[in-house]
């Protein structure tokens, strides 16, 4: 095994933060692939350029997704990375593992791959970093026989992910972990065999804190929320104060709807005006908690900038019950896909399509009425479309 000289990368082993270079070197001790990966990365640092190619589609039999083909541009210099595909293993909900399971995964990986991983990828997968084409089938046999399946890639449903929700958090408004598992199981075909016009991501967050960044990077963002008042433990309010909290500055003045008051004795919330932003609850976590009916808000469309600029997800269904077996949610997703499929062009995400077509056809397709909760503000320019039935149903009402 050729030892690469890596003066630039060596610099990145200095300093207190854990070093990815050290990790690559660890793997390079036994893996030719990892060793040449080290060499190629050093060369990139030297020349300020990447040397990876996309390649043809590679994968396992019967699947169109789960493996990203990757090839070095410099196979002569770095033969170990001539092929350097990544494998996306579908992580368990909430990224919980037993050491037994984790060791098993790693042992198989040491056998077939570079020994390098991403724990985890941005979408949520357990990413195995670098293997060659012929290893894919046997490796998949080993993983799948032990209960592990591949995640998504390409124009498919992407591996859903979730915050840890009810497993360790007091604020989860629905069972994010079960929802993520159950929905992933339901849509195995959509996950493994790209049949969409582009990718579709689902992320489950238990509350408005959004610890899985669903609102910014999921075509479908499921954000838990509730319908009842915020319960107040006045003694605990005092306790927060005693521990140094300036309740007026930190809570009252920061409440976005200005629906709270505190006179030094009693904390009051005008619940009808509260928009459930979670600020007071999160910061005064010992004193306040939500109550009443639980469920989620469904938002659609967020994505990265290409092609029309980055989008955040938009409220489509203000409130939906999220209870196993999540039938209502699954039906909704199916209707959304159907409409998306019928109307989109290749490489058009759902958010982009909604922008092109408008919210109305989507809402009609999924059977949702228009409600002000969907908008931050109504339209400004008086360029609106009417359908004949609007006149019959709406504008002949007594008030029009």
């Amino acid at each position, binding site marked *: 095994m050729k030892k690469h000289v890596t003066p630039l990368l060596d610099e*990145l082993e*200095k300093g207190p933060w854990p070093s*990815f270079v050290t*990790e690559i070197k660890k*793997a390079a001790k036994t893996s030719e692939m990892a060793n040449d990966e080290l060499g190629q*990365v050093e060369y*990139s640092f030297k020349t*300020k350029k*990447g040397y*990876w190619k*996309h390649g043809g589609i590679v994968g396992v039999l019967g699947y169109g997704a789960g493996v990203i083909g*990757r090839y070095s541009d410099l196979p002569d210099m770095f033969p170990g990375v001539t092929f*350097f595909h990544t494998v996306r293993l579908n992580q*368990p*909900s*909430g*990224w*919980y593992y*037993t*050491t037994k*399971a*984790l*060791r098993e995964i790693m042992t198989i990986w*040491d056998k077939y791959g570079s020994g*390098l*991983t*991403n724990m985890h990828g*941005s979408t949520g997968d357990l990413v195995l*970093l670098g293997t060659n084409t012929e290893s894919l089938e046997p490796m998949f*046999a*080993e993983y*799948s*026989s*032990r209960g592990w*399946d591949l995640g998504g890639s390409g124009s498919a449903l992407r591996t859903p992910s979730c915050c840890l929700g*009810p497993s*360790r*958090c007091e604020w989860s408004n629905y*069972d994010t972990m079960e929802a993520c*598992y159950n929905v992933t*199981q339901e849509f*195995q075909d959509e996950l493994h065999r790209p049949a969409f016009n582009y990718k579709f991501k689902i992320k489950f967050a238990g509350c*408005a804190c959004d*610890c899985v960044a669903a*609102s*910014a*990077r999921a075509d479908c963002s499921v954000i838990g929320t509730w319908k009842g008042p915020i319960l107040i433990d006045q003694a605990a309010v005092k306790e927060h104060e005693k521990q140094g909290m*300036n309740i007026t*500055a930190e809570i009252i003045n920061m*409440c976005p709807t200005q629906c709270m008051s505190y006179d030094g004795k009693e904390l009051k919330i005008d619940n009808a005006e509260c928009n459930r932003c*979670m*600020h007071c609850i999160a910061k005064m976590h*010992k004193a306040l908690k939500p109550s009443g009916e639980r469920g989620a808000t469904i938002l659609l469309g967020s994505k*990265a*900038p290409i092609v029309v*600029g980055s989008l*955040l997800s938009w409220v489509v269904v203000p409130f939906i019950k999220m209870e196993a077996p999540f039938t209502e949610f699954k039906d909704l997703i199916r209707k959304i896909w159907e409409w998306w499929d019928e109307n989109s062009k*290749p*490489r058009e995400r759902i958010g982009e399509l909604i922008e092109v077509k408008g919210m109305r056809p989507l809402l009609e397709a999924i059977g949702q009425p228009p409600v002000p909760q969907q908008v*931050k503000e109504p339209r400004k320019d008086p360029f609106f479309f009417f359908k004949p039935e609007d006149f019959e149903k709406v504008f002949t009402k007594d008030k029009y």
Partner: protein
Amino acid sequence: MALPKRQTDIGPPHFKQFLPPVIQKNYGKWKGHDILTPGLMVHVAQSGDKIWTVRVASPRILATETIYEMCDLADKYCGGYIRFTSRNNVEFLVSDEKNVAPLQNDLKAKGYTMGGIGPRISNVVHTQGWVHCHGAATDASGLVKAMMDEFYDYFTTKELPNKVRLAVACCVNMCGAVHCSDIALVAVHTKVPPVDDERVGKICEIPTVIASCPTSAIRPNPAKKSITINEEKCMYCGNCFTVCPAIDIKSPEGDGVAIVVGGKVGSLRSNPKFSRLAAPFFYNDPPRWPKIVKAVKTILETYAKDARKHERVGEWIDRIGWESFFKKTGLEFTFQHIDDFTFMRDTMRTASTFKW
């Protein structure tokens, strides 16, 4: 050796088998939590049961060797349970308080970094970079390492007004949450990509290439069975390259990194926000990109000094105004800062109400 029997469409294993017993028992019945130190928190169930979480930094690229080591620690102190966070930290889940301190000591001894909980910097969400991606205009892990060495104390000890979410993306595809992070780096190309006409005809679907361009800069070139790029309209996003490798976007001289700031994804206080441009371009300067790190540090420290408690970076800037942000950080305001993409109109100021 014969391979085991292959299965398909089994999906991920059910998570329940991976949950520590105390979590299984108190699932959905947690009452509250306390952040005890930047690297340690405890969650208390309605039943009175508790679970301690020790959070450890990870470079995300992990060798199996390291994972085995973590597994050993989890076996020793956590009954064999371990998890990863949505920001790629490692969490050791301790059911027995007695094990907390020994675990911490052992982690320290082995050189692990504990922290990231509460109002501080947690791990950096980032992408592949030169390590694995074909379009990368910079390296992601390298930038993360360079930054986090500098901001180490903000992970392990120092407090900030609120969480500060950092992210790095190695191209404008932004695999991560750069577009909604408190402070983030995004690599950009700055040169119109040369087109290899011969290869285009062979390996690319011309209509797809044309459709891929956000600014409609690409037109067919029927003579050459290729395409041409209108240099005036191209803003080097590389999307044409994504769908057609015969368009060579990467350029050692032209590639570099921009800094965006003020994004968030949660809805506390203010709604989710997009990150916005703070600095349009720094030349790639591996292995440590010192100027970028310095600029990020300036932003971070200005925020730390100036923001009110609980204000996120974007909320702080919204309160003081972008003109104050540029003044206080000393960052230069350039033509690139002014939006000239589709949604310019919403970014322009429509009143004389600004600060001098």
